[in-house]
């Protein structure tokens, strides 16, 4: 087992290289930078506690899995659920030049309507651009579950985003 100092150095190097990417992923999931930072801080703590068991090259994927789990734990907290409980998304018409910003708000609102695991699936597949198998690894489920969950979530999004227009120039 490596010395405390070397273990810390290695972890600091990992943090240096990957923290912002993890924060962005957590932000995709939570939609809030403060929550994202809270999630990543907890995830890095858990990652460091398990650092001696992390395989070479596997740390980024392992970290993403921990971020996923911490996010899902957060979502189980009542205050998070209350905060996210809103009415159905209104149909929006998008017009340039604010179109891109409004589209993001609309999509974020629609994602908030999904169950936590559905949201994670969509974020991993479409925003983190992971494969089915990588998504399954990040979520601790089978590839089949990812596929069925993606299909179900996309069905919901299709309804939630019905009437939303793709901005001109897309």
């Amino acid at each position: 087992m490596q010395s405390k100092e070397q273990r810390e150095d290695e972890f600091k190097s990992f943090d240096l290289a990957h923290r912002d990417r993890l924060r962005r992923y957590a932000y995709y999931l939570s939609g809030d930078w403060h929550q994202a930072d809270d999630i990543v801080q907890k995830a890095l703590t858990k990652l460091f506690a398990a650092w001696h068991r992390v395989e070479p090259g596997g740390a980024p994927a392992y970290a993403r899995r921990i971020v996923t789990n911490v996010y899902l734990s957060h979502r189980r907290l009542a205050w998070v659920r209350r905060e996210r409980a809103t009415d159905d998304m209104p149909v929006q018409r998008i017009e340039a030049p604010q179109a891109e910003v409004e589209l993001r708000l609309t999509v974020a609102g629609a994602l908030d309507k999904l169950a936590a695991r559905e949201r994670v699936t969509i974020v991993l597949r479409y925003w983190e651009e992971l494969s089915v198998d990588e998504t399954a690894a990040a979520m601790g489920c089978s590839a089949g579950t990812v596929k069925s969950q993606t299909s179900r979530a996309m069905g919901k999004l299709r309804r939630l985003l019905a009437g939303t227009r793709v901005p001109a120039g897309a």
Partner: protein
Amino acid sequence: MEHHDHTEQLLLQGRPDDPVPPSGMDIKQVMRRGYRVQARRNAAIGGAAATGIAAIAAVLALSLTGIGDEQTPDAARTFPAGEGFDFNPATAAYPPDHPVYDSPDPVGRELNTAAKDAFGDLAVDAGIFDADALDYEFPSDEAALEVMEEQGGDYYAALSELGFNLEQFNFAPRAIDAKGGQASLRAYVALDSNEEAENLAYGIAGFQPGGWTAEPGPTGDVAFPQHLITDEASWTDEAPEFATETLDDGRILMTADHGCALEAAVMYPNGSALTSWWDLDCEGQGHQMSLQDLAAAMLAMPQIDYDTSELAPVEFLDMQPAWPVDESWPAAADADAQASLDAAVAVIDGAFGETERHDGGAVGLPTGTGEVEQRTYTTDVTMPFNDRLDVSINMNVRYFLPGGWLPGLPPEGAGTGPYLVDCGAPGDDKDDVCAETEVDGRTVATRTWCVADDCSWFIAAYDESGWAVLIETSVNGGQVDGYGLEELTALAAALPAPTYDPAEYETD
């Protein structure tokens, strides 16, 4: 432009693109908290993975059979050997991948229910938790299926979603590495769920048949077949009082009394096993439990009929063994590591311009259940140029000294196992291209993984003298001229040999 069904396009365009704000996170504080988390889990890491203990064989001055019969609710229980195997299960194992449970798992239910009955009062009497901690019901299959249907995830994710992971005696399946990840043992493990406690108080593991021997010995992925309980010193510097007894019904009971901790194992006639450890007072917790009561609880557990359909004899590739974990090695090897990494960085600088070298040195990478490790020298460097998103490009360089790994790409469909480059499994829909080439007399394995305009490269060069070097880097937003697969492959093949004493690493 408006599409008939443009949900995917909306999703992709709706991805937030606001810049990542500055982070005020204190990484030192994160690590301090990490140490506290690890301290709480230390007992789990050592115990759950293999449930280990210590040396000399003593005679347990108890009639263990009598204790078991007296306390077993159904004294008429039998422990059939079952149909057996056409092969020696001790030298067989399971595929390295983790099983996924897409439907309720009756084995998990049986273990959870039985353990609550067998160990509940024992733990309460020991002062590990209050009786009201046992005031829960195992989630129904209907409730779990509803969550699985609603939220996806497998059965155990659903149990977690239902909050069962917060209860005591919540067993979950685990794959335990064997022979450096070439195969695995399978077990169901339950750990003390009190995360507020400074130290976990117990771990219980139900081992499926395969890959282990009933003989006591050093635990974990040190040998194959693995030992589930050892009679050598572990919880303390002293070997425990160790005892073995074969019962009339075919079960074998082993116990180890470490003074401040107790351990026990039961091997069943059908080839399965149950192990448990209890940290009672090693950190001054003040819990109390008698060996007799623990033995009675162990014997009150049923023999489980596990799914062994994937258990098969395995032919392991010849691999120089990994090194027993040695905390003194990194410091002893530091001078060699720094010289090796400085020399490597000089070559990288020659190829790409002057880089910024970060910290690094000799690092032992534990593999499997953590009893053995690969010996590596590693550092990170930041390139003197950014990628097309103007983000700095980092490269991790890691030398692997001989022992605990295999050269080349893993066989198709296999996990990473003891290989240094993970090329994914069949059916991966990502753009994941792996290749093995010869460059200047060295074998080089490459993995290129691109998602849209973001690419990562994992390139390992293997020297015939037994060492390897792995570089890992990525760029976002498109190719960077002069920094791609071709250049990185050439770099890996050109990196100098690390400094180490080959004689120390020779094997017969």
